């Protein structure tokens, strides 16, 4: 059961990684199109800045959950390298739980703020994209990343308790 849940979460995070790369390339392509339009037609594409901000925001929050499974979030192993595997797993599990706590807070209070700004009708500066479209990525991305952190925590804590590593195929 736990292994299946873990696999499903990894799959979602991987698709998030793919989406992240596509969104960044789209931001680059839009920027180039704007420069070409500016130099050939005399005027750029209206709202390029707003759209690039939206694309990068989406890319960032699609990528954060992937970082938990790929173990790319930077940590220092200077003092912990000599620990026994189960102690190390316990340490990693607790760290991931703290991460989940932070991400749940971000998602929750981000959601509160998003609701507030949607109520005010806040929009982006040039082409008036509702700010909610930006907030959705933060709230959704943080929530998915919190789930990823919980799965990673569960994996390490199970190893710390003497169980199997549910990620050994990844």
């Amino acid at each position: 059961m736990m292994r299946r849940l873990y696999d499903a979460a990894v799959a979602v995070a991987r698709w998030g990684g793919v989406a992240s790369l596509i969104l960044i390339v789209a931001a680059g392509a839009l920027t180039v199109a704007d420069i070409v339009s500016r130099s050939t037609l005399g005027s750029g594409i209206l709202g390029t800045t707003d759209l690039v901000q939206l694309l990068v925001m989406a890319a960032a929050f699609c990528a954060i959950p992937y970082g938990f499974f790929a173990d790319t979030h930077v940590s220092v192993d200077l003092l912990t390298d000599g620990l026994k595997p189960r102690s190390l797993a316990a340490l990693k599990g607790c760290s991931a739980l703290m991460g989940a706590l932070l991400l749940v807070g971000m998602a929750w209070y981000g959601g509160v703020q998003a609701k507030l700004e949607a109520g005010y009708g806040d929009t982006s500066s040039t082409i008036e994209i509702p700010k909610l479209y930006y907030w959705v990525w933060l709230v959704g991305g943080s929530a998915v990343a919190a789930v990823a952190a919980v799965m990673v925590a569960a994996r390490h804590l199970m190893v710390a308790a003497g169980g199997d590593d549910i990620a050994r195929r990844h």
Partner: protein
Amino acid sequence: MESHFIGVLGFAIVLALILARMPVAIAMGIVGVGGLAILQPWKSVGFLLGTQPFEAVYPYSLSVVPLFIVMGVFAAHAGLSRQLYQAVYAFIGHWRGGLAHATIGACAAFGAICGSSIATAATMCRVALPEMRRRGYDDRISTAVIAAGGTLGIMIPPSIMLAIYGLLTETSIGKLFVAGILPGLLGTALYMSAVKASTLIDPKVAPAGDRVSWPGRGKAIAEVWAVLALFGVVIGGIYFGFFSPTEGAGVGAVGALAFAIARRYFDSKKLWDAVHETAGTVGMIFLILIGATLFNAFLETSRLPAILASEIAALGLPPTVVLLVLMVFYLALGCVMDSLSMILLTVPAVFPLIQALQIDPIWFGVLLVTVVEIGMITPPVGMNLFVIQGAGRVPLRTIIAGIWPFIAADAIRLALLIGFPALSVWLPSLMV
């Protein structure tokens, strides 16, 4: 307890959590929120926890970071690094230690389209290490040269570290990029001198290669026109004001992708590797930015940076002395911490002091990135050492045994950059 003491305590707890292997982003975020909860009512903390992550990711100028990451990833997977290596080797490979010199030159050139030290070191390890081993190079010099050469990617524009420093301190990213050119070239020359010194001490560690004919050299140069064009367009465009750093990054990312597609370098494995590197790096950087923003909100609330700046300014020490003390502090920190975390954790606390002492922010940015570079090859926590250890399957002690001439070269460069600020600030002063 006074608020700035809570700030100091927060700093100590973050360091302790980082040393206990908690990811840097989470340590900064958790301590930031905890500290804010002590200093402010929970309603304000909730507001900051909702808004600060948004503010950390929203600025348009931040788009420069993922775009340059993508440019570097595509450039690495498109085989540009190998062609650069072969081009430099064609000219200097017949020198004693020629392959090592070529590796330094190729690292500098690849850094010019990559922007990341770790990516430069990992890429050049794949390209240069097998070749140096084939030619009978000692593993000590061949691995050390890649680890050191890789750090050039952090200084030679476009530099992701300089971009992040610019965002944190509201210093012009374009000017910072241009400021990195001369120090980057100086670093290249000094690393080549370190290779020369190593081969003079023990000629057997790096034998000379074959001389390449002039037609062969012409062919090698013709192969790298795309790299030279990409660098020329991106940095030239920023320098002459044709476009902003973010636009330059967009051009670089799309240009590197177009080059990779045109030469049919992508297969499904390379594409998946590109996804893994991009998502892994982008996710890591943005989560650290969010953690740092929360931690900085706590530091500002504690008033620690302002009090620190006014107390040190009141001592009346000459700015150069303060700068030297800061450099020693960063060198020590670089032995146990990675570069990005160092910058994000300390710059908000240190920069008010730099402003109070009227030290040029561009000069300080270049010095900061230089010491961060040194930290990447300084044992025990030099990130590039670990990259080469993993990618090259070499014991860490072998790399460390060869790294000292390069650390000495870096110390000379740092002294020159402190003694002659014009090396950093002259080129930006000419900008449009």
